């Protein structure tokens, strides 16, 4: 196997992993603050895809303006869901799990009724390819990777340095103690849920031109996101980043040596191995 094919495979794997990390970060943010495992998270990714389809492909809006619109619209949809549904279920993991499954079907069926069942193509925001010696990557994927990496860095900076971000981390560590220090837990929870969903929406908007949009498009990224956060550790942002890169590398290189069916189970084998050796994941809290 020539080395350039191996490096190309790694590049392919990392390229998409960065976007799945965005979805995983949203999922883990929501879990750490609300203790809710949101199975409907992929549907917010799907909503981001459809905002892009209607604003960019149909409406002709500028791509970056569309991206911003997708983040805001899906964030707002997340805030509404939190207010109407999940606020009452904070800390009730099992109840929230079942409700989120129901929400998944409601959102998916609503999308099928509203947008139709066929895949919808979104034109590329940029065209052409970038060659780095024998390596090739499309400009479109470079744009996706760079934007996703910027969003990940932005989220990290927000949580580390912004006052609201620090309040979120405090609420995630100990909600009662944070409340005693004057943190408005309800506001922080709503904001955390909205930001988590907005990240999924951004991921959907980024990948809409790369793939196509459909009501069922959220299924794959949410499975990848769960693998990522279980490997990285529930509630850990650096863990999600590392878990994502690890999954990207394993799947990217794995395809060179085995069939796609075998590769699709590699991620789950990773999950089983991690849970057996280190049940809390690579960076998860004890």
């Amino acid at each position: 196997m020539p080395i350039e094919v191996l490096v190309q495979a790694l590049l392919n794997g990392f390229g998409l992993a960065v976007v799945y990390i965005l979805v995983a970060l949203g999922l883990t943010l929501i879990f750490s603050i609300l203790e809710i495992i949101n199975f409907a998270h992929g549907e917010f990714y799907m909503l981001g895809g459809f905002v892009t389809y209607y604003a960019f492909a149909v409406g002709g809006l500028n791509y970056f303006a569309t991206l911003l619109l997708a983040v805001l619209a899906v964030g707002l949809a997340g805030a509404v869901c939190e207010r109407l549904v999940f606020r009452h279920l904070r800390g009730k993991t099992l109840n929230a799990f079942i409700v989120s499954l129901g929400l998944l079907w409601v959102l998916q069926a609503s999308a099928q009724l509203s947008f139709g069942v066929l895949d919808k193509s979104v034109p590329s925001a940029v065209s052409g390819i970038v060659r780095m010696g024998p390596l090739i990557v499309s400009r479109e994927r470079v744009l996706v990777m760079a934007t996703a990496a910027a969003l990940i860095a932005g989220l990290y900076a927000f949580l580390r340095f912004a006052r609201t971000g620090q309040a979120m981390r405090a609420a995630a560590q100990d909600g009662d103690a944070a409340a005693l220090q004057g943190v408005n837990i309800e506001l922080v929870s709503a904001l955390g849920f909205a930001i988590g969903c907005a990240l999924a929406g951004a991921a959907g908007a980024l990948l809409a031109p790369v793939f196509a949009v459909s009501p069922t498009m959220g299924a794959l990224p949410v499975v990848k996101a769960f693998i990522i956060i279980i490997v990285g550790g529930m509630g850990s942002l650096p863990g999600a980043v590392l878990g994502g890169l690890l999954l990207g590398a394993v799947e990217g290189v794995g395809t060179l040596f085995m069939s796609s069916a075998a590769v699709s189970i590699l991620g789950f084998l990773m999950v089983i191995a991690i849970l057996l050796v280190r049940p809390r994941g690579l960076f998860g809290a004890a």
Partner: protein
Amino acid sequence: MTMRRSIGGLALAGLAALAAGGTVQAADKTLTIGLLGPLSGGAAAYGVELLRGAEMKIDEINKAGGLKVGPDTYQIKLVSYDHKAQAADTATATNKLVFQDKVKYIIGNAVGATCNAAQTITEPNKVMFTFVCWGTSNLAPEKPYSFRSMLSQWELAEPFYRWVKENHPKIKKVAVISPNDTSGKDTNTAVVKALTALGFEVTADEYYERGTKDFYPVLTKMLAAKPDMLDVAAAPPGEAGLILKQAMELGFKGAKGWTAGINPFTIIGVAGREAAEGVWSPATINVKGDHVSPAVRKFGEAYEKRYGEVPGAIAVSNYAALDVFTQAMQKAGSIDTDKVLAVLGKEHFDTVWGSLAIGGKDTYGIDRQFLYPFVISEVRGGKVVDVAQVIPAALKKK
């Protein structure tokens, strides 16, 4: 007294029965036809075309006053279920059609693995079943009630690659990719067999899971062998389009084929004009092309007017399938599936495809394959252009 009452009662009952009988004869009956298909997901384009093809024919029959079979006239009612290209969902949907909706005809299904699932219910219950699935095992002597209404890889692959060899002699190395299921495996098998027999080198015989969106990993492996041609063999339009788009992004500039390319218009939409440029499809029909009959052209115009899209081979096939089966019912003078079956083996049918024969015994061991001439098309400048018309070998024998 008791006897008199009984006779009186019998007489009244007899009169009532006569009256009821008269009423039934005068009124139209309803013939419910079932349809299965992927109506959502990556293969939804197949199901939608099946449904629309059936709707067109059924509306035509109903508007003309119904289907006259023997002394009865039937209004046709269509019941369809979405099986999402999943075998488990297909079994559930077929059970509903056969036992709940009581259908005796299921006209239309797509995706190979789902056909096998449906046949476990249709065959023992003598339900007539037509499909466009590409699984080899879907037609067999032990499945007498099953018919394929569209040409499959076994009729198409060899003549298609013979045409490639004769018209594009620089193409020597071909890479093939299909979904990892029955129809995908069967298609790759037929394509690889044809390629090998014709002296091509097969650089990749690859599979992917249905629903895959990112083909960079598998394409990186396939394109490393530097094929002259990439065949997205049995990939449905959504996935075939993505493969071609991503192959172009990875620098592939060779020839492109789509052996199962039932509607090249759909691939242009997904892949974009640049990536779809030059794709050859042997399974297609260009309703606006030079090779089609006035009947196909008329069907295409009516379809586009009604649905706003250009029909592909699946829509035409299912329209023709309903035509063949309703003609067979009329010739048999009955809707009983065994009586209709007896007619189907013996006749040629005048359909939208022209004179259609049912053959395939050499390949499948039983004559259950619809046979008609096919066209190889090419995408040029965002349009679909016919480049050759080919007669399947089995049709020449008929």
